[in-house]
């Protein structure tokens, strides 16, 4: 068995699981077992032709599998696979409205006199 670590952006598709135990003798077989258990994950990892997507990085222990034998890399018991996501971080794109509006209390600048209650 191999442990696959699922990154936060993909956890909605594994029912929130952070680490998943899978079977398989190679990286390809382990990933196939993963998406067999979590079908929603499939389109995030593989393209329509079944190839691993270019922006999906898979590391075996601390090495990029591209620097090993790619998806054909054999797995040993106790190996750990990690999927490394491309994350942009920070604020959203195209959500101008809620980003632009200051809180009402923030409109009172330091030094200005707050309006008196009527």
């Amino acid at each position: 068995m191999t442990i696959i670590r699922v990154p936060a952006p993909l956890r909605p598709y594994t029912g929130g699981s952070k680490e998943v135990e899978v079977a398989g003798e190679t990286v390809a077989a382990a990933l196939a077992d993963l998406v067999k258990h979590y079908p929603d994950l499939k389109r995030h990892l593989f393209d329509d032709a079944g190839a691993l997507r270019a922006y999906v990085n898979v590391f075996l222990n601390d090495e990029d599998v591209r620097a090993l034998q790619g998806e054909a890399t054999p797995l040993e018991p106790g190996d750990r696979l990690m999927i490394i996501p491309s994350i942009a971080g920070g604020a959203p794109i195209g959500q101008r409205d809620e980003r632009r509006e200051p809180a009402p209390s923030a409109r009172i600048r330091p030094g200005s006199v707050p309006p008196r209650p009527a």
Partner: protein
Amino acid sequence: MANAPLVSKELDLSHDEILRYSRHLLMPEVGLAGQRKLKASSVLVIGTGGLGSPVALYLAAAGVGHLGLVDYDRVDFTNLQRQVIHGMGTVGQRKVDSARARLLDLNPAIRVETYDEPFTSENALRLSAPYDLIIDGTDNFPTRYLVNDVCVLTHKPNVYGSIFRFEGQVSVFWADRGPCYRCLFPEPPPPGLVPSCAEGGVFGVLPGTIGTLQATEALKLLLGIGEPLIGKLLLFDALGLSFEELRLKKNPRCRICSAEPEIHELIDYEAFCGVPGHDHEDGHLAREWEVEPAALAAEMKAGKALRLLDVREPHELEISRLPDAMLIPLGSLASRLHELDSAEDMVVFCKSGTRSARALELLAGAGFRKVRNLYGGINEWARQVDPSLPRY
């Protein structure tokens, strides 16, 4: 030597500066020579948000003599949960002005240049030219690829940090000495596949941790001390409080930093990523698959039979909810389509309209024809229709 200081020039310190930096001067790894180097150093910080806040604060405090800040945004109330360089007194102001004032209050002995504009292919080479090192504190893929390519083409180190929910990544991408961002991520994910922080949320202290690590790497590079994160990707998980380090290699087929690169100049990064890197000032036009909250409220009042589908996560219902809406979180929608009736008129909503737009694509792809997206989500509904609901 692998980690020769990035900056060899030194500038004299005044007596005030010697006193200010005394805790640095006591350590031989920095010392007077190192502090004089920092004074002669210049760093461009792209973004003055969650990551840029701690980066700029610590670089200013450490005495980096010349800081540049690039950001075209204004300080928003919801930024203050994590963007600690700003404050209530600067909500509504330009972020670069707010940040500059704070930095000069912390350290008036430094110079802070501000660029109140997006970082684009047109201005990137000009804006970055005076700086020794660039810090990527951006929030979107087009700008990340742009920062990388600028650094590769001008032989500068790119101190990278990125965050998502409770997890972050840090690295130093420096093509002259190791891999670049494109070696690790040759292509961006298609738009919509990775949720943004506004949809996914972010733990407020996380950019503090990641940004502080970026500042640490920048100072080490400028001084030429320690082991920089070149060829290594540091992963941080705040919940497990764990760090992991992965080894990165130069991609021999990298499109920009390999021996035979395809990219020799800056490209159109918005086209490359399929998404805008910056907000564009286009007015909103309701499209046929969208419905404005006020219009939806009118339809409901008129008694039209509608199915409301909420694609948010269950815990978001504690913040706000629409009566009679059915909840199917976006992540499980694909496997729960059988619970929906394609003959019904349906309106899909989420917090602000992004996840529901993705749900709409998924439904349309599955043959649903009578589905519309609630423009602006439940937050816009709260604004237009029901102000008793909180916005978040």
